[in-house]
């Protein structure tokens, strides 16, 4: 499916690093564009496999909305919810499209979470 076990270890390391860097982190998921979990950190009760599929759907729908609206490719999607934020960013690694998603609690600063997710996405990109 992906670039082998070393590839997966590198992606997983980015997920763990991002989780450690976030304020009030709940979970970090790295998914392929087609919804397969390739990295996860944080609360496993949040079903990372299911979140991977959901974030890939949201990312694809966000991309369609951006393009249909003349805004070009989507870079970052944010969900503000009652109890926290979900920040998603698309990236690529070795030709494989990925979505980096971070869930943080309401007390986190959204701007910092977006910045951290963008850094993680850049770190994966090669």
């Amino acid at each position, binding site marked *: *499916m*992906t670039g082998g076990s070393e590839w997966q270890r590198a992606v997983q390391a980015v997920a763990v690093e991002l989780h450690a860097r976030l304020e009030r982190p709940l979970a970090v998921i790295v998914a*392929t*564009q*087609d*919804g*397969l979990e390739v990295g996860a950190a944080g609360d496993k009760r949040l079903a990372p*496999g*299911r979140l*991977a*599929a*959901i974030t*890939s*759907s*949201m990312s*694809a*729908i966000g*991309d*369609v909305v951006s393009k*249909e609206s003349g805004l070009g490719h989507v870079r970052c999607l944010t969900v503000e919810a009652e109890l926290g934020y979900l920040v998603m960013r698309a990236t690529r690694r070795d030709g*494989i*499209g990925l979505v980096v998603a971070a869930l943080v609690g309401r007390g986190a600063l959204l701007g910092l979470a977006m910045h951290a997710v963008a850094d993680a996405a850049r770190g994966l990109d090669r």
Partner: protein
Amino acid sequence: MEAKIVFTGPPNAGKTTAIGALSDVAPIMTDVDNNDGSLSKDTTTVGFDYGVVRIDGAEQVRLYGTPGQKRFDFMWQILVRDAIGVVILIDNSQPDAMSHLDEFLISLEGYLHDVACVIGVGRTETHPMPSIDAFAARLAFHGHVFPVIDVDVRRRGDVLMLVELLLTQAEARLMLERP
């Protein structure tokens, strides 16, 4: 209000192709590269497909297609809301075609008693078994009586027939519900 119809079914069943064949406008698609080695396809739908068709120059119907993989079953539930009917497409060339029908009947159980439904079975010219009758018998086992027809989703006429069957069923349901 415009009618909404949902095309669902397993990966490779032809949902995106069917909407592309029928839609009067360029369909909106959320296809991305496929990384799942168990599927022999380059791209796969992860959000939804969307198109519209005007039937006989009158009624406009909105067409939605779901992703096929089980991991996207949350989208199946979201997309069937407020639909007047569901087309379940089955690819008969896949070895477990009948179990795919089971999977979708079970996942949509809460909706199928309230909406119209048609089963379209594809690639029957090269893979005639299970037969159309066998699919109908399986529907009866699940407590449903829906039309089952063989289709080539690349042909607009075939897809239009699926939609017209759904609309006919939906109208019949409305007539029965009227006091």
